[in-house]
């Protein structure tokens, strides 16, 4: 069966650039490293082979909060035999997934889960035809979000009986690619690399000297921008405050909301019930919304990678879209604040964590109290679990401190790079391309705010205003009397 035939029976009419080559390569049993930009449909690259290959396809993904979204998206598109297994699942739910395992075609797991022997042993009993490593740049310490648990995936692959391997990432320099290939022990892989460049997105960056007037400026900018529009705010508080100040229907979204409310807001945005969304970077990776016309960054992003990934949520339908960033000098404080949340300080490690570990205290609580980012917390705890009993607490802590120091330097470099980009007076597109070691060039028209004037982009027509009569509303919800 060739790749094209597989598309029948799915909602997808044709392949996007890169997809067909990747699918064909996997079906031919060849290891594949696919560097495809955000929004180019990476999921389809493994969804199609998973459907027809014997046994199970395992997808390793570092973003636990995203896995459930991805399963939901697959099911919405008619792929039912998928599930996600990660630490945040209820025990009952986990049990259920284990029971149904032999009927599943696709299983998302977190790298931490794959480090557990018991789980590996159960997976070994199954036929695993394809191992997918999503966000594969996490494997390389040269990548922008190094995750130590990814390092052992090459070994895991062998333990699973050497299935075909697909490594996926949106951005990877030459150095990172080499690293991925050797870490995952890829055999003569097909490397399918596509540019991070999204020519349909106009890149506009504004610098503000006066950060106090930024809020007003942003709200005006959003009001005048093409909808649907996502505004990335630096903090949860800004998401709430800006949304409440915006004149017109809008909503906010951040990781501090409960699951039901997050699901609700996400759905309202997907169905165009609201077309302006103020969100933290927690939003918008799992669910595919093709018609976003504007992405606004209300602050300086943490890295060029993050910036490119987030503006990539605009214009996935290929139509014209625009990315605005409004930055001020003191914005540099914010990424540094995130660095502090992500990377525990040496003092804390030595004076809080180590004594707690040596006193056999509940580390989950200690780590939770320090309010680090999700993956930092799980890294700290997993380092102290049984796998490391042969090391002393002090050894574990000192090793982590070294690792964290290095990470801090990398982050400093990333912040320097994004600052340079934001302050630049030459073509932004060119600079982004050369940052990712691609051939730099400017678009002939509608390139960026250093090359051309901002283009006019049409909004999607808004959906009808909501009804305030409950009988009418109930009929709408149940699609009654609509013909």
């Amino acid at each position, binding site marked *: 069966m060739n790749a094209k035939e597989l598309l029948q029976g799915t*909602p997808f009419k044709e392949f996007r650039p890169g997809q067909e080559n990747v699918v064909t390569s996997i079906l031919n049993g060849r290891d594949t490293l696919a560097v495809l930009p955000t929004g180019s449909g990476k999921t389809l690259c493994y969804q199609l082979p998973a459907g027809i290959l014997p046994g199970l396809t395992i997808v390793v993904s570092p973003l636990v909060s995203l896995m459930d979204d991805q399963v*939901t998206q697959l*099911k*919405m*598109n*008619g792929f039912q035999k998928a599930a996600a297994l990660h630490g945040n699942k*209820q025990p*009952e*739910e986990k049990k*259920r997934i284990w029971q149904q395992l032999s009927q599943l075609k696709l299983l998302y797991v977190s790298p931490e889960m794959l480090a557990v022997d018991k789980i590996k042993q159960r997976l070994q009993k199954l036929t695993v035809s394809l191992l997918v490593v999503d966000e594969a740049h996490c494997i390389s310490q040269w990548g922008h979000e190094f995750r130590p648990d990814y390092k052992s995936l090459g070994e895991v692959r062998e333990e699973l009986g050497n299935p075909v391997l697909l490594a996926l990432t949106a951005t990877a320099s030459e150095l990172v690619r080499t690293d991925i290939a050797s870490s995952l022990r890829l055999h003569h892989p097909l490397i399918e690399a596509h540019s991070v460049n999204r020519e349909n997105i106009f890149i506009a960056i504004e610098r503000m000297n006066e950060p106090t007037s930024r809020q007003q400026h942003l709200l005006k900018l959003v009001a005048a921008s093409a909808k649907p529009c996502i505004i990335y705010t630096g903090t949860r508080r800004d998401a709430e405050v800006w949304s409440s100040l915006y004149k017109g229907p809008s*909503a906010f979204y951040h990781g501090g909301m409960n*699951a*039901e*409310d997050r*699901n*609700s*807001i*996400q*759905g*309202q945005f*997907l*169905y165009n*019930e609201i077309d302006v969304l103020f969100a933290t970077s927690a939003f918008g990776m799992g*669910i595919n919304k093709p018609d976003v016309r504007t992405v606004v960054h209300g602050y300086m992003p943490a890295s060029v990678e993050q910036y490119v990934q987030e503006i990539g949520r605009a214009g996935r339908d290929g139509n014209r879209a625009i990315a605005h960033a409004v930055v001020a000098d003191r914005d540099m404080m914010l990424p540094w604040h995130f660095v502090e949340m992500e990377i525990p300080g040496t003092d804390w490690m030595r004076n809080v964590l180590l004594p707690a570990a040596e006193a056999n205290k509940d580390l989950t609580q200690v780590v939770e109290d320090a309010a680090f980012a999700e993956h930092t917390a799980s890294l700290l705890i997993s380092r102290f679990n049984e796998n490391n009993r042969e090391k002393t607490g002090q050894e574990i802590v000192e090793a982590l401190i070294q690792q964290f120091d290095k990470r801090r330097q990398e982050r400093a470099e990333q912040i320097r790079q994004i600052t340079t980009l934001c302050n630049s007076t030459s073509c932004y597109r060119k600079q982004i391309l050369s940052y990712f070691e691609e051939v730099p060039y400017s678009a002939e028209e509608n390139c960026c705010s250093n090359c051309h004037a901002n283009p006019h982009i049409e909004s999607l027509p808004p959906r009808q205003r909501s009804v*305030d*009569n*409950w*009988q009418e*509303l*109930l*009929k*709408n*919800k*149940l*699609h*009654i009397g*609509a013909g």
Partner: protein
Amino acid sequence: MLKGLLLHVISKLQKSRSASGAVHILKGKRSAQTIQDIELFQLNQWAGAARCWKGKDLAALAEQLYNEKMITGDNRRSAVTDKGYHLLKQTAWMNELYFQGREYEWTGFAEVFWRKLNLTVQAAGSLASTNRGFLPVYAEADERDAVRSIIKRAGSRRVNRLIYEKLDQELRQLPDKSALIFVSRLAGNQSQGKTVKQLAGSMPEEEVYLRWRSVIHQLMSTEWPEEFLPLISHVKQQSALTNSAVKTRALVMNGKSKDEIAAERGLKSSTVEDHLVELAMFDSAFPAARYIPSEKLKELTVILQDAGQQASLKDIKETAGDKGSYFDIRLAGALMKNRKEGKL
């Protein structure tokens, strides 16, 4: 949020409990003291009303009431001030609500029912349109199964018509305000429910929340067509015990001690104690003698009777001194209550 409700419950506690006693009632804490307070001060209506809230947030709310001088008092007894009563006057709407906390919130039944109902409406609405795929609202695996079975058995068209008729009929009997809030919360065809925060505009968030929950309670108290029995089946299946207590019960019946149960289930000793107290209160087959020597039970029962119902656990512990731990006293109290209701 829930400020008015917390204040209301504090006022009902008649200056004999602290603000955190009120928080425990709203949070639905399964302790002998809280369960006793609910009966004593006739707070069944609001018991467990804030079960889905974070305890931390509720405690902060109580703190805020102190700071705003809505209540005064110490960590034993709180009283509502004149300023507080002034605010309470504005929450008269609460009395008109059909809110059944002890029955539907304390037990967690309302939340499960809501998730199943919401998913049913969303699925039935989406399947009726040409655009059949949808982003499902959150529901646990067995809840999804229940909804799937409803649609499979009756067919999506029939489910669509029946659920419309049922909701239309029930909502007609309610204030338009409440009906609109409830329907706006529902997901449907190409439409997601609005969050409580989004609906709070012309009325406070607290009112939106309580009106919405009241409609859920109202719907749960009515007869449902046979096709929809899986929506309410969980209400009948469960006893008064929490799920976790049911698991502990199995070990109790196998003759396990408190420590053995804690080890086997990987629970904290205090959690197992909560379960044992719960069993002592509701389960007539509870083998009390294994967990409290009969001599000790006798002594504590006398102390409890002398202290009277208004006494707090702390007061009783002071009187009892070395004669019993907090756990012993709670267990004795629970057993007393169980006997009084004729279950033992």
